[in-house]
């Protein structure tokens, strides 16, 4: 709501003018109150006072208002698979929503939105980016050719090592196992005095 006051000149008021002003301001307050209650529910784009900042340069690069495409789940899913080329090592979505000084990721975002608006599907858009920039544009290498080694060598190595380990352990266990319970006579060899001493030693150890 805007309020204007006249400070220039003298204040001449007759009765009628005074009443008009009173009624006007009442209506104004009511109108603005209604306006306020209307505004508060949820975002009404384009409403509300938004004054200029004292020094906009301090707030970084000027941004565009958020559109529905920016929050679109499909767009977001696509962008999370694309690597931002600004050198930040992040995906396009994370970069554009984190490093607001970056101009590369918003441009790539624009391109994704444009391609989607042309009716291309997610995989098609991604293919388009790969054609344009090479496979390094993908956050994870595609699963084909040598890249399969990237995905499966660790798991295969672990499985192979696990199998070898199991076999080795089994052999170790077998070579060590052959005495089921032959130890009884062995231990009985201890004289009562020795056993007593062993007991003493054990009592000193705390577990």
């Amino acid at each position, binding site marked *: 709501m805007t309020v204007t006051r006249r400070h220039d000149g003298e204040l001449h008021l007759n009765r009628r003018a005074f009443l008009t002003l009173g009624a006007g301001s009442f209506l104004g307050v009511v109108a603005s109150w209604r306006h306020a209650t209307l505004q508060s529910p949820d975002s009404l784009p384009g409403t509300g006072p938004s004054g200029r900042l004292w020094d906009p340069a301090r707030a970084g690069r000027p941004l565009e208002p958020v559109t529905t495409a920016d929050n679109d789940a499909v767009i977001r899913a696509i962008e999370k698979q694309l690597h931002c080329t600004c050198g930040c090592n992040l995906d396009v979505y994370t970069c554009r929503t984190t490093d607001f000084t970056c101009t590369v990721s918003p441009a790539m975002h624009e391109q994704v939105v444009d391609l989607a608006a042309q009716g291309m599907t997610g995989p098609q858009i991604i293919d388009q980016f790969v054609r344009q920039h090479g496979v390094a544009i993908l956050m994870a290498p595609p699963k084909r050719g040598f890249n399969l080694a990237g995905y499966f060598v660790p798991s295969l190595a672990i499985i192979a090592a696990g199998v070898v380990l199991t076999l080795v352990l089994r052999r170790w266990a077998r070579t060590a196992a052959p005495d*089921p319970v032959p*130890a*009884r006579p*062995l231990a009985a060899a*201890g004289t009562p005095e*020795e056993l007593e001493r062993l007991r003493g*030693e054990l009592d000193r150890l705390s577990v």
Partner: protein
Amino acid sequence: MLELVAGILLAAGAVYFVLRPIFRPQLTGNGNREPGNGSDGEDPEDDFSPRAVALRALKEIEFDRATGKLSDADYDALKNRYTAEALTALRAERPGSEKRETGNVAAPPFPVSRVPFPVCPTHGPRPEADAVFCSECGRRLATAPGYCARCGTALERDAHYCHSCGARVAA
């Protein structure tokens, strides 16, 4: 200028400090006087003599059974085996001597010569004539073959002198 002087003084001090043990070995000959780290600062868990390992194993077997991890059959088998091991270790350590347990029975005759009684680097001469390990701390004793007679260090193969204390190795 002041800095340069400070730097030179620092360098001189450091060089003196580093080279002193070489030029005047007698001053530092005793070497390695670590603050009170004999045996009393140490965890008994750090003792890896066969005796200690076997005793700990016995304790653990008992505890595993008490918490229900060992079946009776496994318990018996393991128990037998490690009791036997512990007994072997105990016998090897001090054949038929109960002296240490009963305390100082008439101050043990500390020998003057270093031959007849084995010596622990930390606890001095041992009362048991043929001990291989110290009965105080379980450390290997000097007379064991392959170990220095003076300080108990493991020797290099075919060494003529101990690489730790420099003592001549008996042929």
